[in-house]
């Protein structure tokens, strides 16, 4: 056995806490035994020992160095096991992997953040970063949507953001049930709250994260509004496995989402076929 850096090795990590967010979404608070800092938008591979690993984007503040939060929807084999995890359990982490949001580029610009569903998780990390550096950006707009009020990730926290002076916030749900009487915000898909935004679209930055269908329509809307291809930042969900551009699973055209993304500007990928599939 010889000591060179092994990119496939997970770092032993303690589950400090498990927070139930919605019916099928939980947030894990994780403490890796070796330091792991990340940039908002980068991702990690989370290992459930003996079960497997899956890619997630941290949802916590990048400034919080020793603890990382990851918000996870139960959708498959690994996430099912993740949802069974309890405080004190051991998991593995690899990363951070890929490229996140280039915050330096966002400086002195107007920023529109559009998120849907589980996409609000990585965006929370970005919002924290924008709040950390409040004042460095001209204006920040946040437009978030979920299926129903019950599915709204971090709802209480996000509703509090509406008190912030450095943020213009609107929320929506696709539909609400009769018992969702406390939902006073918009009802409709996320593009329905993207009108009437007072910003210079031509020079503005847009960040989109959500399910493929939401990303597609939000991007079309942004283009119609006048955003430039190269100013639209998309977080692409592909089957990232090795995380270092070798295993071949997450290829998008001439890129691998894991090492060249997962955050891409629209101009980089718009000519590839089936980017929204």
């Amino acid at each position, binding site marked *: *056995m*010889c*000591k*060179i*850096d*092994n*990119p*496939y*090795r*997970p*770092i*032993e990590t303690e589950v400090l806490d498990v927070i139930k967010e919605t019916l099928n979404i939980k947030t894990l608070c994780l403490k890796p*035994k070796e330091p792991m800092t990340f940039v908002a938008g980068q991702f990690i591979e989370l*290992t*459930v*020992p*003996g*079960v*497997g*690993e*899956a890619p997630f984007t941290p949802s916590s503040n990048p400034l919080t160095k020793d603890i990382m939060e990851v918000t996870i*929807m139960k*959708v*498959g*084999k*690994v*996430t099912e096991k993740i949802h069974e995890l309890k405080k004190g359990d051991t998991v*593995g982490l690899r990363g951070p992997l890929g490229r996140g949001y280039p915050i330096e580029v966002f400086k002195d610009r107007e920023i529109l953040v559009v998120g849907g569903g589980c996409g609000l998780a990585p965006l929370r990390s970005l919002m924290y970063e924008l709040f950390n550096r409040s004042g460095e950006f001209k204006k920040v707009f946040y437009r978030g949507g979920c299926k129903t009020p019950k599915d709204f990730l971090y709802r209480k926290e996000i509703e509090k953001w509406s008190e912030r002076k450095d943020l213009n916030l609107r929320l929506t749900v696709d539909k609400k049930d009769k018992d969702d009487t406390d939902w006073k915000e918009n009802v409709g898909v996320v593009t329905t709250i993207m009108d009437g935004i007072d910003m210079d679209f031509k020079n503005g930055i847009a960040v989109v994260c959500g*399910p*493929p269908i939401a990303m597609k329509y939000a991007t079309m809307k942004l283009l119609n509004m006048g955003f430039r291809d190269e100013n639209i930042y998309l977080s692409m*969900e*592909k*089957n990232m*496995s*090795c995380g*270092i*551009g*070798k*295993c*071949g*699973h*997450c*290829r998008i*055209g*001439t890129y691998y989402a894991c*090492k060249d993304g997962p955050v891409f500007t629209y101009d980089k990928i718009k000519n590839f*076929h*089936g980017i929204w*599939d």
Partner: protein
Amino acid sequence: MKYISTDNLFKLLNALKRDYNVYVPVKKGEQRFYKKYDEPSGDIRLGEVRTFEPLKAFFSRAREVVAKGFEPDTPFAQDKPLAIVGVKMCDLKGMKVLDHVFLDHDYKDPFYIKNREENLIISSDCTFAIETCFCLAMGVKPYPEKDFDINLSETTGGFIAETASPKGEALVKKHQRFFQAATAQHRKKRESRRNEVVKQVEENIKKNNVPYQDAFKGIIERNFESDIWNEEAKACVECGACNTICPTCHCFLLYDRKDEKKMERLRIWDSCMIKDFARVAGGANPRKKLWMRLRNRFEKKFDFFPKVADIYACTGCGRCISACPAKIDIRKVLRKLVDNV
């Protein structure tokens, strides 16, 4: 240029056994397979054509442990480096593609690096072509001129031995007692042998109407929405043999298992023809249909790699042609793509 007699070559292989696990091609039925070398035997074929299995198997193993739990040490499995003898030029080109993936990239793969650094490649000229050979169409000659440590060209009573790396040179120097200077006669013999094999491959290409790679520019983009993919995929049974047998296919699957309470992470060769290859846990799958996956395989080889690494990821070895139970023939697909303007 040196000459080594067949007797001395086996003495050299015997000597190499001290530092290496030596692998040589042996003939079984109609095919040639790599076998661990022990002593000279009648089934060893140092010339002839490529083996059944691709060379990549010695560098990116079909199945290997890449992590043991959270242990910081990298779990290298190889006890001794390998000396792989009788490697053909098509497989050496395959290594160029793998080098791009595992070595020359932003991220390096410790397992591949170690194998690449330590393993010895003793290549050899093809002494004839088989029906599926079309290397010349892919810009690959049936004899190695570079990218080996030592190359052997069969000639009267032995081989011409050339070196193309410091490792190869050092080895020849160390064992110089086995070598002598190659004569003009030896070279002449090699020349005519090489020309003869080139002619055979050219005839193959002509007979099978295989397009040359100069005609490949834009064939994928141009045919992206073409019916060719659907037509070709109709017979495909999604076995993935074309992937595993291909000297340039590099995709792998990471999977974890629990072994006596200890977690191990393995990687195994994967196949982009399998339905779930690109599927995400949420259910989205960019390549739901089989024809999309067949197209993807060609896109990777004839669009992705030329764009990112300036190389077509096909070596003309013809392995996928013989391996495919549905008789999907890469030569015919390429012809259709080139002709569809």
